[in-house]
């Protein structure tokens, strides 16, 4: 099985730091004292709470309903009582609170009676709906609702199952592939059938030989000929969607296209497993595998309930005394959580205990000398120093001209920058400003349309009113004229009638002026 591989430009090779937790089998984390389950765990709209304070819930019970198509349901991770539905901090760089359901476990961890759906006889649409209700989202870190990625609008050729896990420290997918390869392959098969793809490529970095062996064995055991486990060279960010697809298929996805436009869809191994669990066991996503590592005595991989406070979880790995923070995700793209007790969410693949020794504070930022080191490592082949130059000066249109939108924020540029410039933050800042400006522009456009419509309406109403008045005046004049023709009339009468008609016209004009004045008054006010 010799798969032709491709290369992507750039990339870096930071120290792996996977050895610390690689050898530790997945263990089940104990029930925490309290679970905080944020309702916005996926990309798109936040879920709407369907429970109230005081409700008793069972494990796997619906607590948040998906809002619209790009949204995903949320479930209780254990049985217990809802003690609060209120904004709580979540692991997000903003440090903002979002609506969360707080559950006090009853200790029984009792499942809702689970019923596996008969997915083989369901319509694809119904299967996707089922997955949305089961809360299946991307488990690799991005948290994109999975059902939304399975809408088969174009003919797809390849399904890429991402087991590359290219970020340092993280080993949860490695352990998952070693221990639950069969379920991953089964899940991939379900996705393959849903998407009707011809080929399934499972990409794994060559620093995980055991996982590769386990996956190969599972594929062989299933007797799947459309599957191939492909070993990709270890090079960060080989696990980035665009880079992995490039390595496996040679296709490059432009910024304005989706992978499906090129006939490829991509899922993380853990996501494939969640799909399998949801469809085969009827089990919604209530837990995930989390790697605990970094500044700890005993790194390991744990199966953790969603909503478990991070400080309680990290205690299992016995963090050292000088721990001063937690990074959720990898050290290249993860986020520094705003508090120790924020909950584990569906996207939390790894918790790294920070310490000044392990992650020294960034040295002072120096001026960019345009050395081009960043451009050499950029996997998107951008010119980060140009993006920086314009981002720093807040000239966003120039930054856009240098393809800021194509940046995947992988952090390679900032990693190699000799001037220690926080390039990624500059780019995120610029992207945020550009997004906000676009939003504002959209609002301004719609405001303008409504303003113009209102003016048009006022104009029309005025015209209608004037016309009505003129018609009335004309009618009156005609009536008067008719009256004058028959009965006894005189010269003076005619004059009076004529004056009447004139008055009606004046009245109409006065009315018009008044309206106009009223309008300008209200506008000036």
């Amino acid at each position, binding site marked *: 099985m010799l798969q032709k591989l491709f290369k992507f430009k750039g990339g870096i090779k930071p120290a792996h730091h996977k050895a610390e937790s690689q050898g530790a089998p997945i263990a089940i984390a104990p029930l925490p004292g309290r679970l905080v389950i944020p309702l916005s765990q996926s990309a798109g709209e936040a879920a709407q709470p369907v429970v109230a304070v005081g409700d008793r819930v069972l494990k796997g019970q619906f607590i948040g309903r998906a809002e619209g198509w790009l949204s995903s349901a949320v479930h209780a991770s254990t049985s217990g009582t809802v003690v609060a539905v209120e904004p709580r901090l979540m692991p997000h760089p903003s440090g903002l609170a979002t609506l969360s359901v707080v559950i006090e476990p009853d200790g029984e961890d009792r499942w809702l009676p689970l019923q596996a759906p008969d997915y083989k006889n369901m319509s694809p649409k119904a299967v996707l709906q089922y997955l949305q209700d089961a809360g299946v989202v991307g488990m690799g870190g991005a948290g994109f609702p999975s059902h939304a990625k399975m809408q088969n609008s174009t003919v797809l050729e390849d399904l890429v199952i991402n087991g590359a896990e290219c970020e340092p420290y993280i080993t949860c997918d490695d352990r998952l592939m070693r221990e639950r390869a069969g379920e991953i392959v089964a899940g991939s098969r379900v996705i393959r059938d849903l998407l009707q793809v011809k080929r399934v490529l499972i990409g794994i970095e060559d620093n995980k030989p055991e996982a590769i062996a386990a996956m190969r064995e599972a594929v062989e055991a299933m007797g799947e000929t459309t599957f191939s486990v492909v070993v990709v060279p270890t090079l960060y960010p080989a696990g980035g969607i665009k880079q992995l697809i490039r390595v496996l298929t040679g296709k490059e996805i432009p910024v304005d296209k989706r992978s499906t436009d090129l006939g490829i869809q991509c899922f993380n191994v853990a996501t494939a497993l969640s799909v399998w669990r949801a469809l085969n066991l009827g089990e919604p996503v209530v837990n995930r595998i989390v790697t605990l590592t970094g500044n700890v005595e005993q790194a390991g991989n744990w199966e953790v309930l969603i909503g478990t406070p991070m400080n309680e979880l990290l205690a299992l790995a016995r963090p050292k005394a000088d721990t001063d923070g937690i990074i959720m995700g990898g050290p290249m793209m993860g986020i520094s959580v*705003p508090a120790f007790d924020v909950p584990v969410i569906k996207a939390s693949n790894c918790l790294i205990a920070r310490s000044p020794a392990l992650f020294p504070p960034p040295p002072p930022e120096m001026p960019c000398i345009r050395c081009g080191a960043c451009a050499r490592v950029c996997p998107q082949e951008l010119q980060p120093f140009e993006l920086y130059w314009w981002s720093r000066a807040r000239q966003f249109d120039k930054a856009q001209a240098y393809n800021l939108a194509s940046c995947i924020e992988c952090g390679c540029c900032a990693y190699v920058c000799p001037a220690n410039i926080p390039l990624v933050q500059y780019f995120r800042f610029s992207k945020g400003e550009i997004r*906000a400006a676009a939003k504002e522009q959209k*609002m301004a456009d719609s405001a303008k349309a409504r303003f113009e419509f209102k003016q048009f309406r006022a104009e029309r109403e005025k015209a209608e009113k004037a016309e009505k008045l003129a018609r009335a005046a004309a009618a009156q004049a005609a009536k008067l004229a008719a009256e004058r023709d028959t009965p006894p009339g005189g010269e003076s009468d005619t004059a009076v009638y004529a004056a009447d008609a004139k008055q009606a016209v004046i009245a109409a004009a006065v009315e018009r002026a008044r309206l106009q004045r009223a309008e300008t008054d209200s506008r000036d006010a």
Partner: protein
Amino acid sequence: MEILIAIAVMALGALTLGAALGYAAIRFKVEGDLITGKVEAILPQTQCGQCGFAGCKPYAEAIVRGEAEINLCPPGGDEGAKKLADLLGREFKPVSGGGDGEAVKPRLTAIIREAECIGCTLCIQACPVDAIVGAARQMHTVIETLCTGCELCVKPCPVECIDMVSVPETLATWKYAYPIIPIKSAERAHDVPNNVGAMNDTQSSHRKVA
């Protein structure tokens, strides 16, 4: 004699050139203008009238005619003035009139205290962008996503039940900040607190949305 020749020559030249220009004036007559549209596209369309013109379009027209400065639009801010300066090749002037040029007015939205509303429809008439709904003698309400924060509805309200409130930051509107390690305070950069708090600090997570 020579002076006459000189005059004749110059007069001949002037005549020829005058004729050419006259013809060109007819040949290259300009109808309409495209710039007003581009200027208007930069303006924020709040229709608030703070510039002294009755809406964004009249202001745009005044700018193009050269009758108005480009820094009269507070909702557009310095950013907008900069864009106008760029488009028109004029010198940039800060909107706030110097000094605290960087201070950006937070985005506001109108809120009707619905219990106090008497349903007079005055605010509906005042709203330039149809962002208030309601009928006579019925309670009115502001559609917050449509409100431009122009404050034009505040004054007409006879019972003063309209408040201008700042729009809270949410996960959807949150943005990364400008990196905060200037070269100037290089040696102080090490002191920037990047630890997230003590291990047992659980207080922080109960912070409510601002």
